[in-house]
Structure formats: C-alpha cells, structure tokens
C-alpha cells in the first residue's frame, strides 16, 4: 500500500491493524501444543524468559500440566554476545539425561535468529549426542499462526520416520489433529475415530497428535495411508513424497454426513471391505439420525454463531445445519487455514448441500470488532466458541458451548467427543443443554 492509499484508510480501520485478534498465537504456540501432546517429549526454548509464558499460560489441562515438559535457556542479551550455542547444548543434553525423552523439540525466537545465530547449525551439532530426535522448528514471531507451527512440527517429525520400512495393510495414520490437552474431549474424539475405523476392519497407526508417545509416532511407517486433516493440508503433497504413501486429504469427520463421507473415503483408500463398511455406516446413521431428530425437536434457540478455526467452524456449522439451526455469523480463528472461502467450500463438502448465502463471516477479528454482534450481545443464540476475550459480564448472559482451543473454563472428565457419529450426538446434546438453560 502506498502512503497515499494508506492515508485514505479510515482511522478505525487503521487501528484494527494494531488490535489483538481473537486468535493471536503464532507458530510457537503450535509447537508448544504439539510437544505437550507427546507425553514423553521435552521442549527446549532458546528464548528470553518472558517467552515461556506464551505457551504454558494458554493451555488449561487438568489432567497433564504443560509446564513440566518445557525447559529453557532464558537467554539474555549478554549471552547472545558471548556463547549461546553452549546454552542450548547444556539444556538439551542435561534434560535428555535426566528425563530420557522420546523426542526433543527445539525452538527459538526471531530476535535471536536476527542476531545471525544459526540455530539449525547448532541443532545439527547436538543431534549425534542427543539420543533421540531433535526436532527443530523455526518460530518467527512476525507471521503465521499456531496451526502453521503445529503443521511445521508434524512435518519435521515425519522426517525422522524410517519410511523405507514396509507398511502394514489396513493401518492408517492421521496427520493434523490439534490435540490440545489430555482431557475427555480430545480423548473421546480419538476413541471415537478409533472405534469407527476399527469397526470397518482398519487399524489405527500413528496419530499426529493424540497423546501417543514418540516411539509410537515414529513407527508411522506401519501406516499404509496417511489421512491428512485440514490443519496439515499444506504439507499433504510433501508428506506423500517423503513417505511414499498416499496422502488422503479430508475434512474433519463431523456431523452425520461429514462423518459418513470421511469414513467412506478412508475405508476406500485403505482397502477396507466395502460391504462391512456399508453395513456399519447404515447402522450408525440410523442410530444417529434417530437421536438427532429428537435433538431437533428439543432445541428451542434456533440461531447459532460459530467461533472456531476454519476446519472446526465448518464441522460445527455442518452439524448446526443438520440440526435445522440458522447460522448467521461465523468467526474464524486462524490466519492460515483458508479463511471465508475455504470455510464455505468445506461446509459444502461436509454437508453435501448448498450453503445459505447470508452467513456473515469474520476472519480473525479482535473482540472489539465483533462484540456488538446481536448474537454476542445477548440476543438469543447458541454460541460454539473456545475461551476468547469476551467480557465476563457479557459472556455470562450468553449460551456458550466452550469447544476448541483454547478451552480454559470447560473441563472434561467424562467422554464428550465432537468428531464421528458419537461426536455428532454429544455435540447435539451440548446444544440442547445450552438451549435449555436459556428457557
């Protein structure tokens, strides 16, 4: 933009550039989240001391606290001028000896890289002594989002898998599941996907990420198909090339139609028995439809507002449409997953139907930009959202279903999936509950 063009932009719009968006995380948080999801990993931060708070304060996990897996060099200006290479080596190797991790994630900040410090070179020098993969992911603070970091880390880790080993027929890997915490929302999602793929005669392999330990992830060579969820889509082709196995790009298995489509595609790609698949899907659909029909009749609030990262927004919206709800506003919480166009395409794919053309879509706005929306100002609506910067006085008046990342108020001790057939029913139940609390 030229200076002249810039000066023509309204001050309100210029200020938007400086506001903090609802989802502000950059690559670092994605790497933090990925490392947290591998129980025997450690994350070495070659960063200033304040940077460690950019990860641990944003994960609220009641089953597995996040800070114990992190170690840091707490580099200072003086260290940068002297020898910060040795700080990384000391920190990584000391913690490797003490904790015996299955993988060590390493990252640094843009500031340190700007000093000309060659992090990659430092990691290569330490790797022979490390005793486990050292997965280095650059996390510039300028651009990208948490999902970029998650995908970058996943791809870097895939580089440590020995793909030359033979795959086992019927074993499927999953790439690109943002496993934020060890609570019974994610646990139930993993369990539900496992249930439906095993029901059609397939076997789960390495699932990036699902709470599996590093060794299990590094055994991804056993998988014959890599199912790629939208969060990892940008690396689908690269993974196919690296692994020599097909990358099957799929939307999230959400809602009745979305789950059916997902399972059909996965089964076909992995060579599952068609008749068994069809029989299982028929039975599941019948059961799920019956329950969703009851939900449709019970949900009193008809308007819904979805606030999620693009793939999850599409999945939640698909279920909402199947439940006959009116989708008025969708707020997308990412910078990297395709925005409004991708949301509409994904929604059309998942539902298999035409999408209403009156949905208002906002791409990662700040709270002040959307706080005046009728759905967020107490107008009757169900809101499916993670914990965002909502004024407490305002949020207490709303029917919010907390789901997605970050979840800081809602904790799960009982299985509450949102993926698969079971997820469609459980989420419909949560919508019914939120609606009932209103009336």
């Amino acid at each position, binding site marked *: 933009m030229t200076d002249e063009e810039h000066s023509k932009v309204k001050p309100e719009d210029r200020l938007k550039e400086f506001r903090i968006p609802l989802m502000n995380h950059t690559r670092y948080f994605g790497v933090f989240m990925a490392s947290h999801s591998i129980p025997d990993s450690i994350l070495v931060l070659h960063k200033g001391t304040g940077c460690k708070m950019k990860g641990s304060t944003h994960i609220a996990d009641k089953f597995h606290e996040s800070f114990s897996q992190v170690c840091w060099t707490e580099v200072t200006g003086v260290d940068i001028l002297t020898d910060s290479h040795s700080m990384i080596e000391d920190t990584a190797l000391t913690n490797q000896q003490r904790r015996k991790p299955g993988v060590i994630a390493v990252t640094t900040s843009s500031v340190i890289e700007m000093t000309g410090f060659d992090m990659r070179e430092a990691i290569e020098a330490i790797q022979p002594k490390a005793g486990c993969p050292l997965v280095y992911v650059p996390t510039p603070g300028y651009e990208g989002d948490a999902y970029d970091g998650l995908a970058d880390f996943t791809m870097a880790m895939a580089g440590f898998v020995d793909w030359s080993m033979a795959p086992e027929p019927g074993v499927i890997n999953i790439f690109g599941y943002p496993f934020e915490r060890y609570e019974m929302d994610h646990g139930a999602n993993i369990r539900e996907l496992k249930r439906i793929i095993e029901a059609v005669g397939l076997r789960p392999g390495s699932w990036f990420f699902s709470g599996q330990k590093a060794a299990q992830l590094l055994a991804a060579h056993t998988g014959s198909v890599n199912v790629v969820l939208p969060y990892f889509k940008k690396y689908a082709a690269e993974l196919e090339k690296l692994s020599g196995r097909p990358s099957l790009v799929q939307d999230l298995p959400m809602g009745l139609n979305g789950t059916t489509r997902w399972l059909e595609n996965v089964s076909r790609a992995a060579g599952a028995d068609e008749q068994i698949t069809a029989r299982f899907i028929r039975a599941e659909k019948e059961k799920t439809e019956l329950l969703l029909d009851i939900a449709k009749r019970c949900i009193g609030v008809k308007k819904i507002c979805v606030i999620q990262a693009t793939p999850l927004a599409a999945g939640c919206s698909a279920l909402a449409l199947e439940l006959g709800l009116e989708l008025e506003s969708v707020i997308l919480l990412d910078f990297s997953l395709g925005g409004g166009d991708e949301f509409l395409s994904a929604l059309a794919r998942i539902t298999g139907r035409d999408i209403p053309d009156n949905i208002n879509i906002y791409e990662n706005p700040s709270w002040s930009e959307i706080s005046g929306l009728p759905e967020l100002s107490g107008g009757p609506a169900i809101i499916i959202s993670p914990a965002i*910067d909502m004024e407490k006085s305002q949020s207490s008046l709303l029917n919010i279903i907390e789901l997605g990342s970050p979840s800081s108020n809602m904790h799960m001790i009982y299985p509450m999936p949102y993926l698969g057939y079971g997820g469609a029913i459980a989420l419909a139940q949560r919508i019914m509950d939120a609606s009932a609390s209103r009336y």
Partner: protein
Amino acid sequence: MRKVFDNAKLAQHACLLEGLCICLARTGGDFAVIIHSYRDCANILPRGVPGYSSDRFFCTNLRESDVMAGSTMERLSECVRLVAELENPAAIYVFGSCLSELIGDDIENGLAEAAEEISMPVIAVTSSGLDDISPKKVVDRHADLMYRAASAKAEPIPFSVNLIGFPPDGGEIAGILAAAGIEVNAGLSEKSPMPEWLKLPRGSLNAVLDKSLFSIIIEKMKNEHGIPTLEVPLPIGVSGTDDFFMGIAAHFKKNREMKEAIRDKRKAAAAAVSSRAEEWNGMKIAYNIGTEREYNHHITAKSGLCEVGFFRELNFDVTLLIQGSPEPRRRFLVSRQLREMGIDAGFDIFVDNVSMASALRKAKFNLVYCVEAMAEIVRPTKVPLIGLGSMRTGYGGCLFNLELIAKTLSGRRE
C-alpha cells in the same frame, strides 16, 4: 556474573514486558497499553484473567519488512496517535521488547513528539526480556507507572496510612486501624485499580511489607511529599498481626489506643493458635519458593517468605523447598541470603518442578505450602497441599487459616 546472580536468587527471572503486562491486565483504569514488538509478544498477556480486557491492549505487530525498512518507530507513532484519537484513554503506556531493544528503537525519547501532539501522558518503558530482572523489580516498576499518573499536588490527611502491597482482607484491618484513630488512605494490592493508586500522595505514612518491593515510589513520595515509609510484617498469625498493628500505631504514637482496638479479636485468635500449636508441634511442612513467577505483592515480598513466621508460630518444623540450581556454590549463597534475612529454617533445593516430588519424598512432610499449579506433581506423594497465597490476614483470617490447615491435614479440604 550471570552465574553468581543465578545462584543467589531465590525467585525466578522475569521479563519486564511480560510482568508489566500481567500487572496492568489486572489493574482496572482508563489507560491503554501498546506493546512495541512483533505479534507473538502480545501472547504474554494472560487472556481470560478477571479484569483483563483486550480492548485496552494494542501491539504494533511489527513485520520483518518494518524492521528491514527501519520504519518501526513510525509504526509506533501511528499506533499511539490512533489509540489517542479513537480510544481517548487518560494515559497510554508503551512497552518496548527484545526486538525494539535489539534494533535500537529509543521509545522513551522517540515518542516525545507524538506525546506533545496528542496532549496526553504517554509513558514509555524500555522493557526487554533479554535483561535479567527479578519479579520484585517488576512490581516496583508497575507501582511507579501507577504513581506517575497521580497528581503532584495533594493535601496529606493526618493519621492516615497507605497500605501498599497487602492482600485485601474484607475490612478487618481498616476497622481496627480506624478504632485506633488511624485512617486507611489507600489500600493497594496487585489487583487495585488505578484510582486507588492515585490516592497515594494524600497518605501521611506508607506501610509496606518490603521496602525494596516499592523502592521507586517510596523514594518519590519521600522527596515530593515528605511521606515516610515504615516496613511492617504481613499481618498473618497472631504475632505477625500484632507486630503489624503495633508498628503502625507506634509511628502515630497511638500504642494505647491500638492495644485497646485489637484486644477482643486478638483474644480469640491467640487462644486458637495456642491450642493448635500444641496439637501440631513438630509436624513437618515443606514451604516452597521459586517455582512460579509471581507478581502478587505479598508473595513477591521478602522472596516469598512472609508466611514462614506463621507456620513457626504453629510449631511446624519448616523446611524451605527452593527451586533452582542445586550446585554447592548456590547452597552456600542461599544459606547466606537466608541468614541475612533472619530466616533460620532448613532448606533443600530441587532443580525443576518435576523434581519437586522427589524432594518431598526425601523427608516425610505432613504438609506442603506451594503454588496450586503443582497439585498434579505433588498428588502422587500424598503430601497434603495448601496453595501459596491462600492464607488470610488479620486475627479473623487467623481462624480461617487454622481451619484450612486442619482440614487439609485431615484430608477434608474441599
């Protein structure tokens, strides 16, 4: 030098930017904060804490291209002008970062022109995370930021005290002081809104837990308003609460009135403490410090050791569990530091939070006093945990604390 500093410290390192943002996130008031850095630095904000409102925080969201083009200060000036024009806060705080320091942005002088143009206080702080700083210094700087917004002219109120750094107590302290003829002018904790800080110049005495925690404003108030400062203990337990009240009373020469004011409340607390002290005599408590970066005033004060005296009063055998490097040299320095602080408790050092469980298992502790966030690590050891900062002040608080400890020891805690 860094090594010596690391070895001597009892608390964790802090980042001034992060610390000030956390402090300001929970400070109510009509001000805006601008973080001058790339986008990721705004993720130090503890989103979701009570009082936090993202509408007050902005970030210059510097891009690589801004850094390469040398246009970062222009971007900051534009942000300041827009915030002033559209948000119109009473003050704007601008914080630097590792990045702004590395590229040499002089935000303190560079914003003078913009500040003059918008006729609004623009307070800029060079706050890089690459400098070693203690949590104590963060609290000190935060207090100064609040004080700088206060009016320079104020008539002091006689027999009034500013209680700086004490946790809110529900009114008992103010009530007792009032009964002795002393008014609380400002009661300040980390959660106090800006208007409470603005009252400071009207107090005739500052009472603090730790002079070094508020060194900047203490000096300014002395020079600008002649307000003296008195260090008093945290009013916790009977002995701590006695010393707190009698210390303030002695300054105002109201010892007799104070003795009268505390008499009834003190009696019940003293009897309860005496009875429990007999029951708990010799029980072992692990008192943890250095595990979490804290900007709560009374936990940051005296390196987190303000409550040791209370457990001693209850006849607990107190062992300090200190997180950090367990090197012999550090043991020596820590020992010397504790001696200088007048703390003669035994101590053990564990290297990081994961190692806390083994430190707890070493000596059969009956109780551990540490941050709640360690609950998952402590749980397998079966040592009952009381959350750091959950003790209440005053004589009434004393009864609450005894009940809390008793319930925790017996496993009845809710």
